[in-house]
């Protein structure tokens, strides 16, 4: 039994574009769910249908057991945060934050207490007397978040609320959003194209592409056991390495062979034979003494805490994550091996994990 339930939800725009192609999704009460995908995957349209800002072409939306599909936006009791803050310019920070509570009919003392709490939690104490136009973009967005999260609606809906902020501030804000959400216990849907943001915030990541849900699960599960090639590539920075070839069984051992048959890896588990794609994350590729896959270094990306070494091999471009300090010369040849425990095999027209 879920708190938020989407059933066969579909949206076709007037021009004929199918933005959301019939999705089913169930969220538990208090769950933080991130809709993740590239531009145009349907994540924002899904969020806007739940908010009542778009009318679904087909399907049903239920919150707390009640069908809200036809309910006007104003009657849905959701807190919505957009990428671009919309504050009341004539109200001070404190009044902006208190505004959603005024119409709820709370006693004044209770209202003030709630406003004080969120001002303190989001570190807005020094700004409460300012008008929005006196604040930086980052501070305005913090006020917008405070205003959306001061109340305890049925749902928080957030559409890339940190998109315009710089990296440091985004990271700080993520922790604040998560702790405030846990405090209020409000079921949250959060839209982003940034897999790192999704991984760090979510109880559950829902990966979307072309209007469909590709996979839904806890961050570690989606990262470690992606259901198909798209998810494997989209999660991770950079995404998973792929090698085309086939799975064979010889002498009781199941191995993967690349297309030219020059490279093989023992899979150590039974997998159906036939054409397949091998997937391995950059952190599970490592140099081996000999007998590996030869790769020529084309790029050594320094990232501070580690390096990404990009290599051209007979099986295409691969990326290896290396510890710091091991600087690789360009054009150097390195023998590559894979950590068999962490390899994935994808097969079939849709590249499903097997």
């Amino acid at each position, binding site marked *: 039994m879920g708190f938020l339930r989407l059933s066969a939800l579909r949206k076709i725009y007037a021009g004929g574009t199918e933005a959301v192609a019939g999705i089913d999704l169930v969220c538990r009460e208090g769950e933080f769910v991130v809709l993740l995908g*590239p*531009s*145009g995957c349907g994540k924002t349209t899904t969020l806007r249908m739940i908010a009542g800002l778009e009318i679904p072409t087909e399907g049903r939306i239920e919150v707390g057991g009640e069908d809200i599909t036809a309910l006007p936006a104003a009657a849905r009791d959701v807190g919505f945060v957009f990428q671009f803050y919309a504050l009341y310019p004539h109200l001070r920070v404190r009044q902006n934050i208190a505004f959603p509570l005024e119409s709820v009919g709370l006693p004044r003392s209770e209202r003030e207490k709630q406003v004080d709490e969120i001002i303190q939690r989001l570190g807005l104490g020094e700004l409460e007397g300012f008008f929005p136009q006196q604040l930086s973009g980052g501070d305005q967005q913090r006020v917008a978040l405070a205003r959306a999260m001061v109340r305890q609606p049925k749902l928080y809906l957030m559409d890339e609320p940190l998109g315009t902020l*710089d*990296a*440091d501030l985004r*990271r700080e804000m*993520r*922790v604040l959003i*998560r*702790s405030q959400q846990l405090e209020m216990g409000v079921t949250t849907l959060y839209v982003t*194209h*940034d*897999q*790192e943001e999704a*991984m*760090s915030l979510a109880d559950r990541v829902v990966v979307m592409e072309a209007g469909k849900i590709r996979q839904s699960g806890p*961050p*570690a599960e989606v*990262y470690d056991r992606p259901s198909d090639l798209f998810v494997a590539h*989209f*999660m*991770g*920075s*950079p*995404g998973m390495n792929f090698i085309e070839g086939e799975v064979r069984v010889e002498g009781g051992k199941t191995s993967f062979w690349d297309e030219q048959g020059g490279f093989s890896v023992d899979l150590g588990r039974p997998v159906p034979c036939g054409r397949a794609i091998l997937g391995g*994350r*950059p*952190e599970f590729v490592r140099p081996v003494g000999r007998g590996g896959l030869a790769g020529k270094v*084309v*790029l050594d*990306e*320094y*990232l*501070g*805490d580690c390096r*990404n070494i*990009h290599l051209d091999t007979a099986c295409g471009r691969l990326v290896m*994550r290396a510890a710091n300090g091991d600087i690789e010369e360009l054009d150097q040849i390195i023998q590559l091996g894979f950590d068999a425990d962490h390899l994935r095999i994808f097969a079939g027209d849709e590249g499903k994990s097997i």
Partner: protein
Amino acid sequence: MGGFLVLEGVSKRFASTRALEAIDLVLQQDELLVILGPTGAGKTTLLRVIAGLESIEEGRISMAGQDLLQQSPAARDVALVFQNFSLYPDWSVRRNLEFPLQAPGRGLQKEEIEERVKWAAELLRINYLLDRKAVQLSGGEMQRVAIGRAIVRRPRLFLLDEPLTNLDAKLRETLRVELVVLRRQLGIPMIYVTHDQSEALSMGDRIVVLAGGEILQVGHPEEVYRRPVSPQVARQLGQPAINLLEVHRAEDHWVTDRGVEVMPAKTGETKMLLGARPEDIAPVGGKQGGRIRVVEDTGPGWILLVDWAGHSIRLLVGKGKSWHPGDEVFPQIDAERAMLWQREDATS
């Protein structure tokens, strides 16, 4: 001074605002130089000055040994790519690419123009887009075409101003790799402006850290990351950001102002600011216990936000072990990799 592009004492003001202050900078012939800084640091102004779109009050700029300030923007032969894709929306990709080559002064033949467009389209893998209108392209395709329009000219210098900022994270990651490899193939020097520290570290042959119109540090990525000259520079690089702790020397140890003994101290100042990157603090081995408040999954590892005797610190650890909020840890700072700076309030 040697170098392909040389800036000496370049200063620029907008009304009473100081935009650039005595900038000295050398770009080598085959170098990708990244300029990193927050909004308002002067990054874009610096590019516009080099391109000839802004005048300067003081200083000298030379390119290939010649005084650049005497040359018109067109004569400088530099290609500028902006954050906002500046294509002609109703033209085909092909026409957008041909246009910069058709300038009267160039005197290129039709065959030469066709050949160059084909070459650029192949390099950027946009052949299949040549007959489409710019308005029909996705953001990533548009930015590829915008870069294509800069490279068909084979300019003497590339100036890129946050060209990937408006793109999805995944696309940014792919294009930044393509740009570095492409630039190396072309052998044309590039100045790349960004506020994104991961772009700066991964792309730059060298990084220039700019703030308030002044250069704070210039160096190879590893040098700027490992040996930042100030806490301000240290905070600009690294994600999550570096941990900063105010410490004083008590006998042979550095002790935080809240009384945590963090690492052995050699002689020197009594009050310092200690910087420790999140990956340089182990979750075990230290004396003072702390409790995990938040655990973030990065994929290959965990970021642990730890309450540590009144300090709030971040650790970046591998996936070998699982961590949960509430777990006790004993943070141990790697003394070899920790950084120390003079404190403003130091009295000695």
